[in-house]
């Protein structure tokens, strides 16, 4: 048993769990033919059958049962704050499973030359009044009952009055903001706290204008919009939901990282010394001091950021993504690139931090401008 626990602790370290998820993701939601072939070959698509659901459910439950009987995991698991996260893990996976099951079902029908299931399915078409409103009323009542029972059984996690001198350690945001808090570990507040949230909201509103694929409209289908699925699922499941899970279960005192079965030692020492890119270049590489001119000091960072955000999409439009560019036109293409590249900047920055202890690519504290 301790072996399993140690293994879990080891696997859940952010470097490892994040890498595993990122590598596994294109196989689970294959965006290209090659990944699709592997997915078929290894039978990953079987996750989206009833049997798959059973095994997913069993393994998550198994994990939580071990956790419940573990003295340390029990503490984080049964905190009233964290119960929504456990519910979220189940419900998120269930919803994805359901969607994928329907999508694969339809894909098989389309392959056989039939129409998708929703084509002439009266089942999910009901009158708003009275049918839908009744369903909603019943759902509402059931949900109220559930919330009331929940609030009676588990007391609200209220704490003592705020005291500016005593910040709880660790200090956690409400659970739905833990993804943001995790991003803040890697970025300056104006980026992770302002620009990224705006981009997330505007970006999601822009999806219908950027995904102009007419196929798969009004019915579930994976293969007809697999790239879109992949990008969205990665952004949603890994860069948001998984970060919430990390923030809930794996972040302990001093915002250090702890495996689920590890004791939250407030004196755990983790070497985290970070260095800015400018220091890497000027001090470590060129063996000079930092130049006094701010722009000269951060030139490499500016080149990197501008190259990543603006030059790279231009080059891609001429080469690899030529078809996409022609199909989309310049405005839609650049919007897609801006949002997409900003999203992938998050994992990139996380890896730079983990691998090279890189603090900021552009670091100008004088102007409150750090990237």
């Amino acid at each position, binding site marked *: 048993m301790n072996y399993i626990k140690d293994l879990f602790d080891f696997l859940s370290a952010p470097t490892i769990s994040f890498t595993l998820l990122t590598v596994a993701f294109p196989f689970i939601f294959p965006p290209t033919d090659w990944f699709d072939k592997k997915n078929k070959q290894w039978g990953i698509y079987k996750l989206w059958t009833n049997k798959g659901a059973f095994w997913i459910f069993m393994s998550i439950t198994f994990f939580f049962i071990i956790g419940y009987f573990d003295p340390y995991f029990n503490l984080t698991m049964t905190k009233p704050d964290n119960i929504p996260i456990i519910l979220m893990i189940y419900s998120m996976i269930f919803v994805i499973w359901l969607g994928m099951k329907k999508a694969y079902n339809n894909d098989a029908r389309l392959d056989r030359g039939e129409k998708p299931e929703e084509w002439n399915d009266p089942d999910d078409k009901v009158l708003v009044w009275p049918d839908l409103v009744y369903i909603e009323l019943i759902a509402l009542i059931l949900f109220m009952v559930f919330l009331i029972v929940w609030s009676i059984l588990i007391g609200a996690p209220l704490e003592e009055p705020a005291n500016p001198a005593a910040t709880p350690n660790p*200090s956690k945001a409400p659970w739905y903001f833990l993804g943001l808090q995790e991003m803040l570990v890697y970025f300056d507040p104006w980026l992770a706290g302002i620009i990224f949230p705006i981009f997330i909201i505007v970006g999601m509103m822009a999806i219908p204008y950027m995904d102009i694929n007419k196929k798969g409209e009004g019915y579930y289908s994976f293969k007809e919009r697999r790239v879109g699925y992949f990008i969205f699922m990665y952004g949603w499941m890994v860069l948001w939901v998984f970060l919430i899970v990390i923030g809930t279960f794996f972040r302990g005192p001093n915002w250090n990282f702890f495996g689920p079965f590890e004791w939250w030692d407030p004196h755990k020492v983790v070497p985290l010394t970070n260095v800015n890119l400018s220091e890497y270049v000027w001090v470590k590489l060129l063996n000079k001091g930092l130049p006094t001119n701010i722009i000269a000091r951060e030139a490499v960072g500016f080149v990197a950021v501008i190259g990543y955000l603006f030059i790279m999409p231009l080059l891609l439009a001429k080469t690899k993504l030529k078809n996409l560019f022609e199909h989309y036109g310049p405005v839609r293409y650049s919007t897609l690139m801006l949002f997409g590249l900003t999203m992938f900047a998050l994992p990139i920055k996380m890896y730079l931090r983990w691998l090279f202890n890189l603090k900021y690519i552009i670091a100008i504290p004088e102007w409150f401008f750090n990237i």
Partner: protein
Amino acid sequence: MSEKVIPKASINSDSGKDLNRKGFLGWLSIGWLAFAGATGGFFTSMIRFMFPNVLFEPPQSFKIGYPDDFTIGKVDTRFKKKYAVWVVRNDEGIYALSTVCTHLGCTPNWLEVEQKYKCPCHGSGFRKTGVHFEGPAPRPLERHSVSLASDGQIIVDKTKRFKWEKGEWEIEESFLKI
């Protein structure tokens, strides 16, 4: 389909007769005035709400005791709760650090064993001098002005802040030589 139903109000057009143009304008202005009064009152009380009756704000400039009260090499956390400063004495003198994390404004803790200030929000770490070295904080903690009063006590003035990245730690007031 039955015949078109004509709304009652338009048949019985007598009802509006006794209201002439002047009377209408009169009522209209009374209505608007009442509305403006109510909204104005509401917003006034809203604005009043922004100014609390009592302010528990400690004075911005205060005496913290004599230089000898502070041990060399120690971070004094006594003033954290009331004034949000750490007072540190090293071999050369005394400085006062603001307890506001330069990342997003949480209050870090001084860890005696590790000899660092560590923020519980996103894990920024600062050395005893206030210089940032781990986590996302982009700049060192700010220092406040320290000086000696005529009675020999140290005065900390929090209205003056000195930022390292602007080279302000060189300024004499940011450090009390002893």
